[in-house]
């Protein structure tokens, strides 16, 4: 009888990681309208890559946050509506999908087929992103020029308050 050692954890390829990196890449690319935004996006994407390769949750969250910041920086550099939307939503999606993959790595071994549950999560999150971004875009285009900042701020504030007061 040989006393068995526990199976070693292997690096696992997951659909979530690929989708997270694609979302992060999209966010970084969309924000690349100014050098500063480009640098921020690149740093964010590299942090995401580091997070999913080395299984570091903090790096994934940091990467998503930096990509989101890149979208804000890009907006100051004259980025278009779609660029900002793709940047902002792509950053959050990248962090979400990356963290979901890391959670799976923590809970199950690499040999378990998880593609179905990963795709389901990705489709649900993507749908939320598309619906919210689309609604925001429609709202943004429907308000008169010059007053859109106030309207959208009003909208956001209201939503946040409603969320907090639930």
């Amino acid at each position: 009888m040989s006393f068995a050692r526990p199976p070693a954890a292997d690096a696992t390829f997951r659909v979530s990681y690929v989708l997270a990196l694609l979302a992060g890449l999209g966010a970084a690319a969309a924000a690349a309208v100014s050098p500063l935004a480009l640098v921020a996006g690149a740093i964010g994407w590299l942090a995401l890559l580091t997070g999913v390769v080395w299984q570091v949750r903090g790096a994934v969250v940091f990467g998503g946050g930096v990509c989101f910041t890149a979208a804000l920086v890009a907006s100051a550099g004259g980025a278009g509506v779609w660029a900002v939307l793709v940047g902002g939503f792509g950053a959050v999606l990248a962090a979400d999908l990356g963290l979901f993959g890391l959670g799976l790595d923590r809970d199950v071994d690499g040999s378990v087929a998880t593609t179905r549950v990963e795709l389901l999560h990705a489709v649900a999150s993507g749908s939320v992103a598309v619906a919210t971004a689309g609604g925001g875009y429609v709202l943004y285009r429907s308000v008169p020029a010059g007053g859109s900042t106030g309207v959208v701020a009003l909208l956001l504030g209201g939503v946040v308050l409603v969320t907090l007061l639930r």
Partner: protein
Amino acid sequence: MRGRRLILAAGVLAVAVGLALTLAPGLVSFDLATALSVVVWLVALGGAAVAVYGRFDAPDAVESALPRAGERPTYGVPGDDLAATVATAGAGERDATARDQIRDRVRETAVATLERFQGASPRAAGTRIDDGTWTDDERAASLFTDDRRSGREGVETDFADRVERAADALAGLAGISADEAGGADDGVPSPSTAGPPATPRLGRGESRLDRTGRWRGVSGLALAATAAGILLGQSVAILAGLAGVGFAAYARAWTAPDPALAVERTVSETDPAPGERVRVTLTVTNESDRLLPDLRFCDDVPAGLAVVEGTPRHTTALRPGKRARIAYECEAVRGRHAFDSLTIATRDVSGASVRWRRVRTDESVVTCRPQYDALAPELGDLATRLTGRQDVAATGEGVAFHSVREYRRGDPVASVDWNRLAKAGDLATRRFDQPRTVRVVVVVDAREPAYATRDAEERRPAVDASVSAAAALAGGLLDAGSHVGLAALSPRDCWLDPAAGATHRRRIRDRLTTDRAFGWLPPRDRDETADAQFADLFTRLPNDAQVVCCSPFVDDAPADLVRQLLARGHDVHVTSPDVTGTETPARRLATLDRRLRLDAVRRAGATVREWRPSADPQAARTAAADLRTGGSRSDPGPAGRSASAPGGGGSSRSDADLAADGGGDA
């Protein structure tokens, strides 16, 4: 709560600013003052990002992970606790007490070592330690001398290094080196490959709904983007913040489902041999009428069983009526292993909430009963008054002549030495050896400290080796005609009165195999002291019983027990599996400590045998067969030595795993 209020205030502010800007779009212009405000705000944004990170990351950590099933518990290697204590002791005055405690512990060993291996008296040993002449290594000696402190009062530098040097110097006095066991001196205890398995936090049948917190802080992104957009005068920036709003609402839209699940488990073998693989198949069926977007489950694999193929953890999305099936294989080891529960986690599609359930299942029991050789130790003279089969220092009716003594009134006429009376005219009585029945209680050390191991990766505790020794010795003693009892030195009670017979033999082996006192998880009751366990044992132990104590001797309690047993008049025989290592100075010191303890009990009057735990019982049986048949092994070495069972009808029993300790018996 404070963060929530801050966000609430920010939301109110956003509403106010939004109203103002809606009524007066040109209220904020982009000038130098605004640019400075942007810089300040971006710094604030960085702070917000850090706060978001903390809120985003922390709650969804290990505590919400599935249990790490299928791995045997992690046991400590003797000496590693000292190494860890030394590593945490700093050089400052604040840690002076901790350093002194460590120093006292090492000094105690140093005194005993000089006494034992250099023949020094306790006083002389203390003097040599105090003046630093006990070793040529000045750094090792400086651990105990006054010149150890340099510079400021209470500050002591290089403490860990000097402890290691002292440990090495002491081990060297006892002839213990890193090469003895072939270990490499890397100075670093081998880390365990994984942490201890997470014990499911729920009792069987319980459930709990948790927020994972993975989306917490995402609404802060919306506020940050809104504020940035306002300050920059770029309304488009606010659109990025919609991501925060959308996903914050998404996270609150659902809660984790509480589905009806049917669980079915089958095991391929319920009575496997040690090392045999047992295949476990688990089927989980979604009997509810809704989709489970994220179902994760983990079979509660009993402690001791290691999964060697497949995995007991699984995740899937499960539609109504569908089922998920997993299979994995465990390697059987001694014990009764009951599969009776399953840990399930269901999450909503966003992952914001998770519902934990510990589901009872039908019990599937796997019982692994190793076969043990029968090995008999040399026994002492303490015996009952019952005639039996074992030669002890008792006289009476028998066959073998013992001695002659002066006749006393009442001696049987048949025992009178008539020849002597005829020759010398003296009335004398002949005495004969009288075989007696010997009672032996086998005590297995199953306290928490005895759950130590030599190899942190192998994860076989010393208790398992002690159980193997106890089973083999009990079998040999029963073969020799002794009445054998069983006791566990543990907070978990286990006691069998001394008896004989085939039924009792099965009872003993069954207890050693299945009793929870000898399970693979250490006892958790730290309140019950060793003294209380000793008292229980003394209460039950018959006065005329000899004791076989199976213990790794990795702490002082077994030595105390042996001394107290000897003081109460019991013959005591120690059988000790060695789980100490020599890879690091601290482990070598632990090896030395163990030798000193065994030496102390030997000098107190106990017989001591080293038990060589064999990783492969089949190999041990082969070696035993070689010894029985006078096989080709010319030098059985320290792990091969035959012993005759006293009074055992001359039968010679193998003793492949029982070897005399280097110091010999007292």
